[in-house]
């Protein structure tokens, strides 16, 4: 019955080759248009993360850096959440000496 609703909502056959084709094309065109092979993009991401980590603590597991297409332009879009200075265990940026006894 679920496929009935999927059809009604136009969400049929998400696994069909049409969607696979669309996703693969979107990925390969990022490389084609930017002339950046995937390994280079990965290296660039790692370096960006390393540079930012030197200055502020970041939530590594939530970092998202992607090349995106907006109309026919390439954008490097980065979402890099910073770790809050005061969390459980109160990690501090400034290496302060406040004792925490929680």
């Amino acid at each position, binding site marked *: *019955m679920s*496929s*009935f609703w999927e*059809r*009604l*909502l*136009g969400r*049929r*056959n*998400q*696994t*069909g*080759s*049409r*969607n696979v*084709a*669309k996703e*693969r*094309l*979107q990925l*390969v*065109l990022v490389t*084609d*248009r930017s002339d950046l092979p995937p390994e280079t993009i990965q290296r660039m991401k790692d370096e960006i993360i390393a540079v930012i980590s030197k200055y502020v603590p970041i939530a590594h597991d939530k970092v998202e850096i992607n090349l995106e*297409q907006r*109309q*026919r332009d390439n954008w490097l879009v980065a979402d890099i959440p910073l770790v809050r200075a005061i969390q459980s265990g109160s990690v501090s940026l400034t290496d302060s000496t406040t004792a925490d006894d929680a």
Partner: protein
Amino acid sequence: MMQPMGRSASNRVITITSGKGGVGKTTVTANLSAALARLGRRVACIDADIGLRNLDLILGVENRIVNDIVDVVEGRCQLQQALIRHKAYPELYVLPAAQKRDKTAVSPAQMVRIADDLRAQFDFVLIDSPAGIERGFKNAVAPADEVLIVTNPEVSAVRDADRIIGMIELLEKRPPSRLIINRVKAEMVRRGEMLSADDVTDILSIQLIGVVPEDETVLIAGNRGMPEANSRSGQAFNEIARRLLGENVPYTHSNPSQGFFKRLTRLFSGSGARQGSVFDE
């Protein structure tokens, strides 16, 4: 017979190109030229595929070629002497490619000169580009006021179209490009096994000007050398021609992005059953 129209400012040179071969550039050029001629426009089409001449064959003028584009460029004849008038469409002329030369026989500057001469006499000058991104392509796009990119809903054709669009954006003149998606099988799109016109337009991010359904009459028309006006594809070409003329023609077929109510109707009308199982999947 070919007196200047005295309104060359509004006359347009349109190049049909694709990157990938075999997507239907020549049939698009032939059928679109015929559609514009049916709408009463004076049309000249140029076969820029030197060495692999075919536009003459699709339009059925192959037996009347006396001179070709290289004869014009090399001064062996006047431009008018190389133009072949179509028998069924008196407003349609063909400038054939040379068959025994290669792409380097014509330069982009010479192409511009020929197109300018034709622009002065015709409402539309359509240039059928060869496949590829080399000299032949450069010749074909050099004089373009606009470009029509032909692609198929197929990964390799879409990728190559993207490359071509990128190259056109780098041209000094930066002619606007619009997209023709050729050989769409609506039934496969519905089954989720073919990129839809919307998918392709999304991916390429350029304006769409036409969707041509897969239609065997295109091949039959090519066999006969006579464009077909009344088939489904013929209608699609008529619509593209009208859009070129600035008309706002809604997309009637092959556009698989259906609205909620259309899906609802299809689901309950039983016609959904034809496309396979509605309930079990």
